[in-house]
């Protein structure tokens, strides 16, 4: 799989990362290198190997369904850029 400059810009946009044209050229080289490595790994025969979802052979611990948290919104909102009536304020987003 080969990557084009437009792909890099699209990936950056999806991740909301601003990249200049020059930076994009650099990332294209780096990402293409990673893709080449992946391609090399594809040569390994993985028949019968179950795909891994996590690097460790452990399973998810469950917690009991109980309310353990208290209302700390005043503390959290002390560091928020802007709040009002307990709400976080953000630049207008509208459909």
């Amino acid at each position, binding site marked *: 799989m080969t990557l084009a400059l437009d792909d890099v810009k699209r990936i950056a946009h*999806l*991740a*909301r990362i601003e990249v200049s044209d020059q930076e994009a050229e650099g990332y294209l080289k780096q990402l293409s290198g990673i893709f080449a490595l992946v391609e090399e790994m594809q040569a390994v025969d993985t028949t019968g190997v179950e795909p891994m*979802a*996590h*690097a*460790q052979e*452990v*399973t*998810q*611990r*469950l*917690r*009991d*369904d*109980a*309310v*353990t*948290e208290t*209302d*700390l*919104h005043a503390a*959290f*909102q002390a560091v928020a850029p*802007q709040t*009002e*009536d*307990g*709400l*976080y*304020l*953000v*630049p*207008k*987003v*509208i*459909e």
Partner: protein
Amino acid sequence: MQWEVVIGLETHAQLNTNSKIFSGASTAFGAAPNAQACAVDIALPGVLPVLNRGAVEKAVKFGLAIGAKINRKSIFARKNYFYPDLPKGYQISQFELPIVAEGELTIQLPPSTSSGQGYEKTVRITRAHLEEDAGKSLHEDFHGMTGIDLNRAGTPLLEIVSEPDMRSAAEAVAYAKALHSLVRWIGICDGNMQEGSFRCDANVSVRPKGQEAYGTRCEIKNLNSFKFLEKAIEFEVRRQIELIEDGGRVVQETRLYDPDRDETRSMRSKEEANDYRYFPDPDLLPLVVDEAFLDAARKTLVELPREMCERFEKELELSHYDATTLTATFDRAIYFDRAVMSLGNKNAKLCANWVTGEFSARLNREGKEILFEATRDKWLLVDPASQSSKQEDLPELPISPSQLGKLVVRIADGTITNNIAKKVFDAMWAGEGDADAIIEAKGLKQVSDVGAIEKIVDEILAANPGQVAEYRSGKDKVFGFFVGQAMKASKGKANPAQLNEILKKKLAG
């Protein structure tokens, strides 16, 4: 050209846990903004999600209730997109390996003018997976800014995905209603659509009748009432057919239904965002459900709708039609079951007639539905078309199951006739008290005293010699006239069986 409609639904059911899916913050509705959004929910750096056992149990219960395959191992994944009410920049969901796979739900379509006879249909359910809800954006009144309330962020959801098995808006509504009934039935979701606890997205496409390949589909988002679901699908089907017949092409897109204008509109902003770049969440390990967990979940399952339906047919000797009608919704099924409990199995058929007859007719006339609130053990009246009323503001149902049971007992034991019972029912609905009190106060007891009925019959025969002669000359039809007159004279209280017998005897001469 004949068109066939193809519909699949994605339903979000909010699981009624005490705490959130990945944190110990409360999920109670109606708290002050952000009072229930803890460090995990607002995605402060360094926090880790820990999965709620209750949410897993409820998902497993649902899987068991639809006869699904429970995946012994399921994986949580990150669904990446940016929106201010999604603090992490991704939603934790399940993608490749959901907890529930391949189940089914049988739906009942009532007889109607458009589809004719009623029928049953089984809708396949592709999967159901666990995920977290996002917060809420408030767009009004913040001097040009948007307010964000993250109380809902992290609330556990079960997203239930059907196969594209529905062929009309009516089928989609029947499926949504059956699903809504089921999640409330097994106690995993309160089903409160006004508060957003149960909402549907509909995937709609059309194809020429007989064609196998599906047409291009559109997804209508966030339908939070059965009425809107039906109207949105009907509008969308018309739109797509007109578009194609005019030589156009349906474009795959997300649309929103606008109830005020009764139309669906393209939601363009979602288009380019539709690349979610799912990957397994490294913060969460694979979820393993073992045999012991499954057994424990199985033990907490109540009698399911199809099981209750079978019991009604077998033990109460109801017809399949009555049994399926009565178990179509959780509230009516429990209502009937409790009414029967209070009056005994042998009068079940009579009780079924009353619940599906007079009781349902009254609800239909008033445009109301009954709602059983299990936590307070209360029966409420709800207006399905209304979007606003909160549960604690709803009026109570005037006739409880045991009160209806007492009325039915009085018909069965001959105290009142079926016709008089309708009057008593109306009085009970108006809040005038129990059946016995009303019967007593209004003097509605059936007259089963042979002497009293004979006296009435004698008077009528004496007053109508012409009709008596007609009857005796072979005109059997006049018999009805005498029954009517006698009932009128007794104000409807004469025991019908006794009256018939006495009339026959006297008329025979």
